[in-house]
Structure formats: C-alpha cells, structure tokens
C-alpha cells in the first residue's frame, strides 16, 4: 500500500486525466473493467463549470512516436458531472480524483467548493493549462498567478489538492514552488506540449482547434527532465507522467523523483497497459 496525501493506493500507477473514460470503458468491456481495474486511483477528465461540447473535428493527429490532440475538454459541466457521472465513478474499486479547470480563480473556487462537498471525491486536481483570457498564456505558466489561484482554492477544501502543472513554461520548478507556497498537497506533470500540424498539402491547421497538445513517447524525455527539476525544487509528492509505456519508463519517473506515475496515451494502444506496468513496476 502506498500513502499518497493520506489516500491509500494499491500501487503507484494511475491514469492521466482525459485519457480514460471509465464509464464508457465499462460499457465496452463489461464488469471485467471493474474486476481488473488497472489504475490505483481514477482521475476524471477535466470538468468545467458549464458544459462544453469540445472542439470541432478532426481532433487527433498522429505524430512521430506520439499523438497531438485537440479535444477541447468536452464535459457535462459541473452539475452534470456531479449528478450523472459521479455516482457511476463512485462504483469503481479505487479512490476518485476529480480534475477541474476554471478560467479565473473565482471559477476554480466554485468548482473546488462543489467537489469538497462530495464524499465520493478523494482528491482534487487543478488543470491550470488553461489560457488566461487577458494574456493568452497558460495560467499555470506564471508562478505568481499560479500561487494566487492555488491559495484561493486552498481555502475551499480540506481534500488533497493536486496542481497539474503546465510544461509550456520556462521554469517548471518555479511553478511547482509557487504551487507549494500556495498550499498545494501535490503536483502532477507533464501535461501535453503545445504542438501543431498542417493538413497535408495545405496551409490550414489540421486540427479543428488549430493547435493541440503532444503526448506519448515523444515527450517522455521532456517529462523526465521536468520531474527531476521539480523534485529539486519542492518537497511535495509528485505524480509523474508523459510517454510511459513500460515498467522501465515508470521506474525512471519514480527514480527521478515522482511518487506516483500516470499512464495516458499508452492506454489508447492497450486499455490494460497500466495493469501490465503496475504488475512489474518494482
């Protein structure tokens, strides 16, 4: 058993937000999914205050050893999530981490306050890779903003608070330190790298959302560098992710300083990838 911010986990492998839909997977794979649930905790996809349909198609582009996605955070909105999804996710045999995103500190507080009231939710992860409406940059890329948001949210919850850092920044260690100062209980990284593809033979972006995020093996070495940098700067538990495909990759992240490891894109290639990785992680 692993203790992560006071939550007991059977092994150190969880999922990356937005890369596994346990409700859809249960429909597809039936009760096997629950019986052989691959992750030691389940992270929901990002929830926003209002429902979002997501970005127009196409939403995917296959890159060398990776994937660019521009999904656009489709979700039912906070109340839809709480009413429809949460009861189903509560049936999973593992603790639930709800990932939320706002475009202001105010919105983040509202989301977190609502999660605070639901006992089914074991921990809350903030996705701060959201553009600041004024600057267009990720809120999470500026240590000052990030500290302020974390601090504001911290007041709303006693549950473990995880900040999912953005990798699109000059100094991820400084951002992690800001999250720590703001009162976070843990940080997770890396989210996808800002990337783009053009439609073959044209000068139009391929993705309906124009730009997207790069994930998968292509970013693994960047993830390792960022996790090591963050470990050098903060004492907080770290959830490391980015391109993990095998037990060896997971161990590398743990050795670089992560406490848990998340599997994202590799689950697309094999839904049971995380179980395979967890089984051989030590």
């Amino acid at each position, binding site marked *: 058993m692993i203790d992560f911010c006071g939550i007991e986990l059977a092994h150190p492998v969880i999922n990356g937000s*937005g*890369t*596994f*839909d346990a409700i*859809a*997977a249960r*429909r*597809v*794979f*039936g009760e*096997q*999914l629950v019986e*052989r649930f691959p992750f030691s905790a389940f992270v929901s*996809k990002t929830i926003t205050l209002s429902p979002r*349909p*997501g970005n*127009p*198609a*196409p*939403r*995917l582009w*296959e*890159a*060398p*050893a*990776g*994937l660019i*996605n521009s*999904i656009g955070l*489709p979700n039912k909105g906070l109340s839809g999530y709480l009413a429809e999804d949460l009861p189903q996710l509560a049936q999973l045999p593992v603790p639930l981490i709800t990932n939320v995103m706002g475009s202001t500190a105010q919105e983040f507080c509202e989301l977190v306050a609502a999660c605070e009231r639901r006992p089914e939710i074991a921990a809350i992860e903030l996705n701060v890779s959201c553009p600041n409406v004024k600057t267009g940059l990720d809120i999470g890329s500026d240590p000052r903003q990030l500290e302020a948001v974390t601090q504001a949210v911290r007041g709303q919850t006693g549950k473990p608070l995880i900040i999912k850092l953005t990798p699109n920044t000059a100094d991820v260690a400084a951002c992690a330190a800001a999250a720590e100062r703001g009162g976070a209980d843990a940080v997770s990284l890396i989210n996808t790298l800002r990337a783009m593809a053009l439609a073959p033979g044209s000068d139009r972006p391929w993705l309906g959302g124009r730009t997207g995020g790069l994930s*998968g*093996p292509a970013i693994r070495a960047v993830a390792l560098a960022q996790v090591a940098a963050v470990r050098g700067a903060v004492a907080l538990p770290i959830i490391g992710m980015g391109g993990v495909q095998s037990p060896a990759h997971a161990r590398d992240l743990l050795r670089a300083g992560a406490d848990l490891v998340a599997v994202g*894109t590799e*689950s*697309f*290639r*094999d*839904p*049971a990838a995380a179980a395979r990785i967890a089984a051989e992680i030590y």
Partner: protein
Amino acid sequence: MSFQQAGEHTPAPFCRRLLQVTANEKVGAYRLLWALDRDAPAPLPGQFAMIAAAQGWGAGVDERPFLPRAFSIARRREDGQCAFLIEDVGPGTARLCALSPGEGLWVLGPLGRGFTPAPAGRRTILVGGGIGIAPLMILQDAILGAGAAVGSGTAAGVGVRFGADATPGESASCVALLGFRGREHAHGASLLHEPQVATDDGSVGHRGLVTDLLERHLGDESPAVVRACGPPAMLESVRAICERRDIAAELALEAGMACGYGACYGCAVPRRGGGYLRVCVDGPVVDAAELERVS
C-alpha cells in the same frame, strides 16, 4: 422471438490479444487479412477492432504508425477465423497489407455498435463504396446465414451474433449495391453474394454512382431498410436519399481514432441537434436520423 436490441454490442475482452495472421489474400486493390481469434466473443456485423502489427509498427513514413488502426470485422467463421479487408492508404495500412502468415497481430475488440436486423418483412439494401464494403460482407453473411439459424446464438456457419432468434428457415432478403473507383477496386465485389456494381469509369457494371443503383432499387419495390458504409460523400448522399423517402437507414461511419473504446474523445462527429457523438462507442453504426449530415 425478437431481434436483439438496436445498438446492442458484444463486450470486448479487456485487453488486446496477440493473434497470428493465417492468410493474406490479394483481392484487386485490397487485401483480405485473416487471423485466428478463437477466444473472442462473436462480433455483431458492423463492429470493428483496433489492430496493429506486433512487429514493425512504427517505422513507416514520418516514423508512423504509432497508434493501432480501426478496421471493420469483415468476415468471421465459427472456428474463430476472422478477416479484415484492408486498403493501403498510409503507413498503418501499408504495414498490415504486408503481413505474412505466422506474423503477429494485436487486436482489441469487438468494439462499437453494429447493424441491427431489418424488421420482419423488409428487405435489406446494402450500399457500399470502396473499402466500405468490409462491414457489409459480414452483415450479408449474417443476413443470409440467419435464414438457416437454429438458435445457436450465432448465425449458422458464421461466427456472428445477428438475428439469431429469427425463425429457422425464414429467409431474409438482401441486395448488395457496390460502388468502386474502377476495375482494380471492383474486384472487391467478389467478396459479396450477387452484388450489383457501379464504377466511376464504367469499367465494371453501371457507369456512375452506387447511389444511382440505390435510387433505382428504392423506386418501385417492397419496403426496405438501408445499411451503408463508404466515403463521406457517398454516405451523405445515401442519408439524404433515405431521408427524402423516409426510409430507415443505418450508416457505418469512419473517424480518426486513437483508442476505439471511448477513452480519447478523438473520434467526434457532429450529432443532429448539436454536440458530438463518439464514433467508437456511439457508432460506428448509427441511425441516419442521428446525423444532420455526413462530412
């Protein structure tokens, strides 16, 4: 006895399986790739699998493929032999088309929602364009097989779940209308039973669109339902025709997919009335009424 519920699906084993390729047959412009999949549940016609070669997946143009690729289960025998019909259009399909018997194949599936049987007394008109004939092969196998089914849970001789509760001997009628670019592709027609063919260049069958054949068939005969798969423009045309004539149609859609089981939200297509459906879990077979248009 009732047909299975619309939109029902066969649950997939929760793990990709390593199969062996048993044959790779050239059929004109296509390849029919056979693999032995003994342990998998029988698919519904229209369901698909995510597949990848066990070796040599990732060394094609642009260092691709990386993700598995979606393919309709095109044929299935009771012994577990299943076939995929593949057209080489990029690095993933190129690698699959080059597989030899004995090589390994990763398969996840059966996935998605399949076709539903026509209500009693209605003909099924299959409309296929190009590689879109793949799911119609297994659908036709099932429809023709269902007529002789004896309650085994699978259509007789065919390892497919479909209309298996139909009264034994009750023969379902079905016509296949197939459109191809030209002669090379039209060889695909040999994979269906008594098809009617159209080609763009007139090299085989009717010169023109497969939807010309469809209009002709809908013109005068008995009540029918339509089951179609093909390129978006063809599907849109089928959809519009059936909407105009108020004929129930199911369309097997395509979309770029990363996962095939609802995890990535990458396979979105616009749903009538707003929002998106995920082709992999809400489809690939959808009721034409769910769409405003196919694009």
